[in-house]
């Protein structure tokens, strides 16, 4: 019995050191709008480098609160520029690691075909019961949606029809399950391989809202993690940009 037991312990030891030598691991907090392309990016990064990527997706505001309270993320891929900036100011993010990895596009989307017209005139007609947006206090895409409605002078008219998702992922789910007939989401959520996956959309003109520049930052926990720094480098490659472009992001 004893030799076998020792062998098992030795084997476990070998496995643990070999995995720590050859492949690192990095934990990344991802804004919900970037979740779909991020999964594809993580997969090809893992194939290329052998490093493991652990993803958590949610609202940027929630991640900020969690990071402030010691959440063990190495990288934040935010949906805005303010949050990474604030983390850097508070010394929770590493200086000179901040950069804009992508610029998002806001769309008005319905899961129904031919429901949203290509000029967004349905908003003026208000021929629907629920318009879903992400909570503007928490999610930059929600804020952009409110800016759009405000530029179009539609807030008073549509106020009673607004329903809020906690993040852009939940907003998408409200519309996808047809509980809300339409709503504002990120182009990346309804777009893959360069085309619309389902339903009908109006791509909101960029002039109607503040640009959705999305910044990444290396966090304190990831400072000496080579898997984390090499992922940030990978995000800047043409290969990564091609994937993001396929999901409708601009640069």
């Amino acid at each position, binding site marked *: 019995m004893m030799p076998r037991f020792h062998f098992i312990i030795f084997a476990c030891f070998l496995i643990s050191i070999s995995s720590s030598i050859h492949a690192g691991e990095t934990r990344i907090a991802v804004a919900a709008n970037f979740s779909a392309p991020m999964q594809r990016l993580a997969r090809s990064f893992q194939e290329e480098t052998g490093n493991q990527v652990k993803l958590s997706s949610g609202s940027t505001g929630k991640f900020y609160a969690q990071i402030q309270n010691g959440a063990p993320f190495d990288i934040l891929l935010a949906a805005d520029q303010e949050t990474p900036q604030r983390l850097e100011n508070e010394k929770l993010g590493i200086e000179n690691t901040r950069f804009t990895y992508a610029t998002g596009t806001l769309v008005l989307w319905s899961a129904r075909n031919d429901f949203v017209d290509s000029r967004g005139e349905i908003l003026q007609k208000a021929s629907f*019961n629920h318009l879903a947006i992400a*909570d503007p206090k*928490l999610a930059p895409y929600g804020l952009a949606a409110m800016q759009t409605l405000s530029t179009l002078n539609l807030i008073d008219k549509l106020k009673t029809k607004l329903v*809020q998702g*906690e993040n852009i992922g*939940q907003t998408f*789910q*409200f519309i996808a399950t*047809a*509980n809300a007939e339409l709503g504002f989401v990120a182009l990346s959520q309804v777009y893959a391989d360069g085309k619309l996956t389902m339903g009908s959309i109006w791509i909101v003109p960029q002039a109607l809202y503040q640009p959705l520049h999305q910044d990444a930052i290396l966090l304190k926990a990831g400072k000496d993690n080579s898997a984390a720094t090499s992922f940030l480098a990978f995000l800047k490659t043409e290969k990564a940009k091609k994937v993001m472009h396929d999901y409708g992001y601009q640069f």
Partner: protein
Amino acid sequence: MTDTLLSTGNLLAIWVTLKLASITTLILLPIAIALAWWLSNTRSILRAPINALITLPLVLPPTVLGFYLLLLMGPNGPLGEVTQALGLGSLSFTFSGLVLGSVLYSLPFAIQPIQIAFESLGSRPMEVAATLRAKPLDAFMNVALPMARSGLISSAILTFSHTIGEFGVVLMIGGNIPGQTQVLSTQIYNHVEAMEYTQAHWLAGAMLIFSFAVLFTLSLLNRRAARIIH
């Protein structure tokens, strides 16, 4: 003072929460009494599966309930088709939808104290009532119900407070509409996410005190009830 307990948003959330808990309790009590009576007296083979079905919300993650409700109540869901045919529109993102969710979610909390009370009565009181020529309904109203009083009170208090603490279901089917579907627990969550910690503290502290008071009252009541019975 917008950063205290009494901001309009918080007051509205408290009001919606109390309304939701009261209505849920009023709807659930008669349902729970009927089901608990049936469960504690029947010998039907359906007893076990129905008992399991009723207890499900106790063990299921609220997200499961919320997810199915969202699909059911949506315009393409079976329930959504019925409510639309009745001209009521869809129940998602409405106060009525939250009531439906809360009734399902708090069902085991409403039934179990009453069921235990009925079962501890045994068959004797009803038999005695019958020999005194009380009709079954009469005996039920004037013998069984008063004797199960502590179970009824526990059930009402548990249902009310459990509904006040409801979070996952509301988050999934509510849509966070002030005055309609924005309740205390989701309001606290939003305050925390938006880094409005002062507001979150006020509401969370109030919830803590309230919950303690409820449980304290409950245990006092149970002790009194135990003393009366023995």
